[in-house]
């Protein structure tokens, strides 16, 4: 088939990102040509600020070198500005007459700096700050002249002013509004910012409007700037940073509908179906964007449609801002000013130079503005994007997530305070310096890219927040995905929720059906999506969907826990932590017979036999004659119990009996992640029920139920759900909660993550207030677990492939 022709106008960040995404999806569909008016390949415009400040070189900020275009078969026309689009003939023509025809056209023309309409704005020495040319000119001027004036106290203006000051110029920032960065900061934060910049030597004129620029004595370039009211100051260089406007002239001349920007729909298509547009030049649902993160989301959606997959919609973005001035720590996102129907929580320490403001609406965080200490900014931004209910953390919200404890990176919670040698990722030994270097040199933007290139945050994930902060500090904004939408993996552009809904709505009962009907790009998925789909299938359609052992992680396929040397551990199940002399004898016999190197008591009140060869597993299970524990699966793990009222002098309830009953009830339960329970016989809580997914504590008049506890990477204390009277109620309420979690949580979310996402009110409503809903949930759990097979005995029914336990010997080798 003949390839179609794709032409792109504008060789900048949003456009080239779209091409990259397209090539990832399908590299054979189009012959691609790119026109760019700048004489450079695509570079990282964001990093012009550190270049101006002398912290980086131009070579370092190239994102796609010429070799990239060539090796992807892209025809690149640098230094050629397109002046005409003929939509009837489907051609584009450049200033120098170069012309190309297209089947699809992509507009990514960015924006133009806004130049104040004042007399003298065309004098030499008056300029904007947008591209490499401007940056080089500013660097050159700074070596020859003294006085610089920057018009505009926004993000761009302040970064320009900071850079020029570092290059030795005396810089004054002129700003029309009452305070700096009024679109991103409230007055309190802006005042702190001004003070901090003043201490670096910058001068400010707020509430000031420019009237005219006047030439110097010799009349060859700008010499002074005059303001309304008559004040005049010397200026050898005037940088206009008073805003940008979408670059739509070309699109308008081609008759494409524009309204401030080029108007596109949710698939990034303009009013001409052959023409797409992305980047700062577009207007989507009435909004234009001037930061890179949302543009990259647009790029992803646009690429998907260009590749003719036709899935994925761009729904707009929540953006956040961070000023890239070394030594100034500032963050703002969302509705930071507040307003009707909102509440504010603030913290001010004017001596320490710290200010934080959080804006809440309907128990959700909708805005944040911080100065001096932005360590928690990525967490706040995540809460905003996920629209998480924060009612229960209100008291501690201001102090951030870090006061909950976090292990694995020497207790660091703030990257600002870390040196380049400090380790960010304890699992893979990645330092802060290595991450910064990778972001800058390899042009990384997202957490996933950093994970891929440096391995940081790719194992346990506890340092994710730190890596996000490093990204934010280097790039000045947060590049995480669109609100509430995170794709499951690289195989498909669907979120966990969308996959779940698809499985339910279309009544899908096999992996193949899910992949073919929901648009997977890979033939059999990957190690990330397959286990998740398998779980969604069997939990949505129990006794009907086909369990696929090859899509399960090895522990659930071999029903034993893999060890680092490839041997396995076996943890015989002792319901509720109770055992008998006969069982102990059998365990001892097996341990001796199979020369088990290590026998250990676990944290979950079980005995662990470590170091068993895979081929020995069936015999070991048989001789133990006990079901093994799912001590490793995404499933019910253990129910810990304390002694309780059968022996303990403090006991009020029979915790052992309760625990055994619960563990029997939950036998064979698979779940989004591991599930641990504990039952204590009185509030002394010897079974440590406070850090379990479901913790049950006996009191004189019944039982208290706690949910969402976790003792892992982040210790989370379980929250009180309700109090019940009878044993039957304990089973029903805790079963119903676990079923709700099983039905609604995303794969690999622990109960605490699920709880944080949906909020305690929602869970109480489903489990406590609404008896019908509770009963229905409980019944579904019981139905699912009915006749759960014992995978350590009933291989056939449990679908265990026993071939895996037989190593094939080669005998002839000796004779060769």
């Amino acid at each position, binding site marked *: 088939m003949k390839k179609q022709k794709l032409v792109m106008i504008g060789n900048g960040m949003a456009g080239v990102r779209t091409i990259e995404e397209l090539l990832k999806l399908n590299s054979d569909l189009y012959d691609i040509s790119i026109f760019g008016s700048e004489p450079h390949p695509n570079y990282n415009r964001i990093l012009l600020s550190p270049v101006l400040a002398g912290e980086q070189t131009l070579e370092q900020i190239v994102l796609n070198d010429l070799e990239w275009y060539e090796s992807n078969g892209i025809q690149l026309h640098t230094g050629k500005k397109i002046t005409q689009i003929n939509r009837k003939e489907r051609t584009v023509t450049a200033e120098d007459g170069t012309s190309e025809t297209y089947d699809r056209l992509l507009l990514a023309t960015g924006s133009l700096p806004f130049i104040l309409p004042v007399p003298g704005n065309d004098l030499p020495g008056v300029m904007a700050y947008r591209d490499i040319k401007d940056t080089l000119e500013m660097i050159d001027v700074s070596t020859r002249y003294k006085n610089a004036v920057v018009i505009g106290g926004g993000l761009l203006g302040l970064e320009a002013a900071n850079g020029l000051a570092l290059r030795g110029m005396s810089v004054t920032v002129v700003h029309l509004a009452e305070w700096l960065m009024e679109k991103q900061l409230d007055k309190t934060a802006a005042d702190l910012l001004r003070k901090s910049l003043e201490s670096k030597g910058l001068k400010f004129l707020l509430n000031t409007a420019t009237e005219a620029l006047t030439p110097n004595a010799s009349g060859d370039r700008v010499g002074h700037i005059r303001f309304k009211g008559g004040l005049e100051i010397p200026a050898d260089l005037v940088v206009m940073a008073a805003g940008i406007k979408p670059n739509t002239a070309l699109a308008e001349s081609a008759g494409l509908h524009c309204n401030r920007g080029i108007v596109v729909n949710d698939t990034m298509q303009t009013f001409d179906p052959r023409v797409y547009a992305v980047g700062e030049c577009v207007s989507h649902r009435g909004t234009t964007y001037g930061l890179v993160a949302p543009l990259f989301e647009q790029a992803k959606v646009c690429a998907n449609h260009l590749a003719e997959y036709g899935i994925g919609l761009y729904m707009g973005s929540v953006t956040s801002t961070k000023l890239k001035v070394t030594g100034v720590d500032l963050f703002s996102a969302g509705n930071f000013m507040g307003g009707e129907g909102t509440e504010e929580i603030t913290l001010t320490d004017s001596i320490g130079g710290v200010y934080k403001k959080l804006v809440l609406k309907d128990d959700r965080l909708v805005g944040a503005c911080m100065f001096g200490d932005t360590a928690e900014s990525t967490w706040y931004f995540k809460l905003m994007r996920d629209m998480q209910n924060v009612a229960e953390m209100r008291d501690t919200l201001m102090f951030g997530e870090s006061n909950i404890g976090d292990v694995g990176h020497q207790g660091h919670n703030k990257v600002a305070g870390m040196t380049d040698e400090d380790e960010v990722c304890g699992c893979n030994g990645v330092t802060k310096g290595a991450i910064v270097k990778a972001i800058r040199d390899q042009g990384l933007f997202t957490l996933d890219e950093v994970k891929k290139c440096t391995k940081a945050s790719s194992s346990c994930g506890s340092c994710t927040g730190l890596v996000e902060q490093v990204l934010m500090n280097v790039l000045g904004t947060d590049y995480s995905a669109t609100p509430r939408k995170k794709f499951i993996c690289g195989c498909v552009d669907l979120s966990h929720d969308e996959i779940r809904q698809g499985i339910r709505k279309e009544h899908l009962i096999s992996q193949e059906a899910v992949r073919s009907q929901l648009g997977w790009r*890979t033939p059999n998925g990957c190690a990330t999506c397959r286990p998740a789909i398998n779980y969604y299938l069997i939990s949505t359609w129990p006794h009907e969907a086909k369990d696929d052992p090859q899509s399960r992680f090895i522990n659930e396929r071999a029903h034993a826990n893999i060890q680092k*040397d490839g041997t396995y551990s076996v943890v015989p199940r002792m319901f509720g932590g109770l055992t008998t002399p006969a069982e102990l004898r059998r365990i001892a016999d097996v341990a001796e017979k199979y020369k088990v190197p290590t026998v250990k008591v676990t944290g979950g009140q079980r005995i662990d036999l470590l170091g068993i060869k895979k081929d020995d597993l069936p015999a070991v299970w048989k001789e133990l004659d006990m079901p093994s524990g799912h001590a490793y699966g995404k499933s019910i793990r253990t129910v810990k119990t304390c002694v309780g009222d059968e022996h303990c002098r403090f006991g009020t309830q029979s915790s052992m009996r309760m625990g055994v009953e619960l563990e029997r009830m939950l036998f064979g339960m698979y779940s989004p992640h591991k599930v641990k329970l504990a039952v204590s016989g009185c509030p002394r809580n010897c079974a440590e029920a406070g850090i379990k997914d479901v913790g049950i504590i006996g009191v004189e008049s019944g039982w208290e139920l706690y949910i969402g506890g976790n003792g892992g990477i982040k210790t989370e204390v379980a929250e009180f759900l309700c109090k019940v009277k009878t044993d039957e109620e304990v089973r029903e309420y805790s079963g119903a909660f676990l079923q709700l979690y099983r039905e609604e949580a995303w794969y690999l979310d622990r109960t605490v993550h699920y709880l944080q996402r949906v909020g305690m009110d929602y869970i109480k409503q489903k489990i406590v207030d609404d008896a019908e809903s509770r009963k229905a949930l409980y019944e579904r759990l019981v139905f699912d677990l009915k006749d759960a097979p014992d995978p350590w005995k009933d291989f056939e029914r449990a679908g265990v492939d026993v*071939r895996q336990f037989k190593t094939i010997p080669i005998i002839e080798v000796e004779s060769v």
Partner: protein
Amino acid sequence: MSELTSQKKWIQVAAIEDIPILGARVIQAKETRIAIFRNTENEVFALEDRCPHKGGPLSQGIVHGTTVTCPLHAWNINLDKGCALEPDEGCVKTYELKVEASLIWLNSDCLSEF
């Protein structure tokens, strides 16, 4: 094995049906453990059962396309070449095999090195 006798010698190791689809079986050849993989295209591959990262048993991983994901720390290893996919680096020994009449044969020349 000397140059003179370099006529390939094949050993039959298993029937293709013995290997689970998107799974693997392990062959013990003296000290060496070799994993035989099979994918949905009915292609089979033989790799030493030792991940180039920290020696994890690749045979126990999840197989997708022509890749296996190591069960220990999730490196992705290409089954054809035996090399880790980006960003990881390292290769594991591969073995020549052929399928004839649904039987899998391993080239024993490479085995004798051990």
